[in-house]
């Protein structure tokens, strides 16, 4: 969780801030937009620089899982809702998109994925609005199981057994993004858009309201924060990110089955956010890179791969409670050391 250092670090008192004309309230002085631009440059560089089909495969997966993770950042990290349903919404987006885009353009599929995941997420959240914490988590777990059964059994919507092959690559304005490079740029555009939308939330009053809701709902309500709207809104929003990612996943893979959306995916999504650093919107991007890339790097150890990967996860989580973002920040502080006082720590994890 962000701000684990709070209470330990002395912070130099800043002079009273008076809003001058053109001055920006503190929450808008963060540099998320620079980060979004940096990711955009990185994605283009990777899309142009990578050459093997295998590397393109990893790159595509990283882009898609970053978007799911980013959605989960909104649901879990920012507004504190323990949801195992992110994988199910990912699946719903995938099936909805394939269903709606059959014989039509990809845009129909995307629109259907957004609309259907948003609607179902809203209906589900409204249904369980009285369950909190663990009860909410269990409800989302049940939802995931039901979703899997629906994917398998509702054949007119999915396919017999929930297995669909031969899904066409995405197309836009008559251009089909069929090559590895095209597809990477296409998916990268979605990640950049998702990051931009998230950054705009980070730089808005919505962030502080979500954090207040997360940290103490009752007090947030007595202060005047619209807790119900926040709760439903953030859940629907984050689930819709998952729906979009699912739609992209289906079209980039060309093949989906219910196994792609089993509970393991939900756990992986948790991992992506926690490993990357739950306190920052950049956490899911780093976490997804780790979860996609690291197991492949461990192929050389053969049958011990799962064991070593698991051990590595434990080491990262124990050694860096702030996740990979915390590690990056620590390295940054270490590099800046000796060049005057660095940025104060414990400012609420707004890397």
């Amino acid at each position, binding site marked *: 969780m962000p701000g684990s250092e709070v209470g330990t670090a002395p912070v130099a008192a800043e002079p009273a801030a008076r809003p001058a004309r053109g001055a920006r309230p*503190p929450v808008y002085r963060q540099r998320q937009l620079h980060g979004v631009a940096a990711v955009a440059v990185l994605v283009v560089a990777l899309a142009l620089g990578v050459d093997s089909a295998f590397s393109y495969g990893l790159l595509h997966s990283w882009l898609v899982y970053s978007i799911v993770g980013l959605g989960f950042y909104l649901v879990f990290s920012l507004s504190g809702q323990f949801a195992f349903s992110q994988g199910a919404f990912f699946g719903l987006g995938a099936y909805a998109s394939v269903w709606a885009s059959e014989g039509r353009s990809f845009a129909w599929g995307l629109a259907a994925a957004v609309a259907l995941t948003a609607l179902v997420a809203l209906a589900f959240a409204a249904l369980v609005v009285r369950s909190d914490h663990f009860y909410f988590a269990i409800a989302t777990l049940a939802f995931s199981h039901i979703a899997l059964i629906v994917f398998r059994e509702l054949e007119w919507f999915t396919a017999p057994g929930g297995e669909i092959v031969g899904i066409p690559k995405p197309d836009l304005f008559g251009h089909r993004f069929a090559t590895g490079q095209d597809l990477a740029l296409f998916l990268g555009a979605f990640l950049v858009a998702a990051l931009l939308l998230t950054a705009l939330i980070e730089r808005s*009053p919505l962030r502080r309201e979500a954090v207040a809701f997360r940290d*103490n709902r009752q007090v947030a*309500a007595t*202060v005047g924060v619209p807790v119900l709207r926040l709760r439903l809104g953030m859940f629907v929003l984050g689930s819709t990110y998952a729906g979009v990612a699912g739609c992209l996943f289906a079209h980039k893979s060309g093949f989906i089955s219910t196994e792609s959306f089993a509970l393991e995916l939900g756990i992986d999504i948790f991992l992506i956010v926690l490993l990357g650093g739950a306190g920052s919107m950049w956490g899911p991007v780093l976490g997804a890179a780790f979860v996609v890339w690291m197991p492949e790097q461990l192929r050389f150890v053969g049958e011990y791969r799962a064991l070593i990967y698991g051990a590595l996860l434990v080491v990262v989580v124990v050694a860096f409670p702030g996740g990979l973002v915390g590690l990056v920040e620590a390295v940054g502080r270490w590099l800046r050391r000796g060049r005057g006082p660095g940025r104060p720590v414990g400012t*609420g994890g707004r890397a």
Partner: protein
Amino acid sequence: MTLRATGIAVHFGALRAVDGVDLAVGPGEAVGMVGPNGSGKSTFLNAVTGVVTARGALEVAGRRVPLGRPGAVRRAGLARTFQTPQTFRELTCIENVLLADRDRHATGLAGAWLVRPAMWRRERERWARAVAALDRVGLADRAEQPAGLLSYGQQRMLELARSLAGEPAVLVADEPSAGLDDAETADLARLLRELPAQGVSLLVVDHKLDFIEEVADRVVVMQLGRVIASGLPAEVWRRDEVVEAYLGRRGAAGS
């Protein structure tokens, strides 16, 4: 009446924590509420602020407000502080105060994504008000620090600033002096005493009788979930039933 609670009752199983309490706070009035531990003071406050389920009727600033709805009570003009200060530790002090601003335009997704210029404009106004509120409690120089770094007394002050930033018609304070040293208590009393003149009515629960006497025009004494006495502070302390209920042992020793 700025605050009128009628027949407020809270039952936890067979326990009648609050058993039909009537209480009214007039415009510009400061009412103190005292009573031994377990007499139902805090539960009564929780009931009128919508935090626990209760029966009865509630009016804030002349408007009927449903019980059990913290948001509705807040919108009607009642703000509260808690027995242990409840600040959002990971937010900065100014963000804590900004949460309570009554101007809620462009605070949602539309403000974040669509109407950002309007959001910035509003936010600058909210920011100026929040700095003023922090200034009032002496925390303006801490505006951009996480609330978690504040001392206990400062957290109390921050909570108070947050409550006042919402421009309430009535402020309900639950043991605001608990955990404060003498100097801090004096500062707090001075601040609270100014409120009625500024149009904020006050309902203060506290254990320190001299503090209550300094802040409140009128005192209500509770015991076992009921109001047993009400009147001017100096006069109420002398009543037999109050001495017996609240200061039982000292009363017995003195007689």
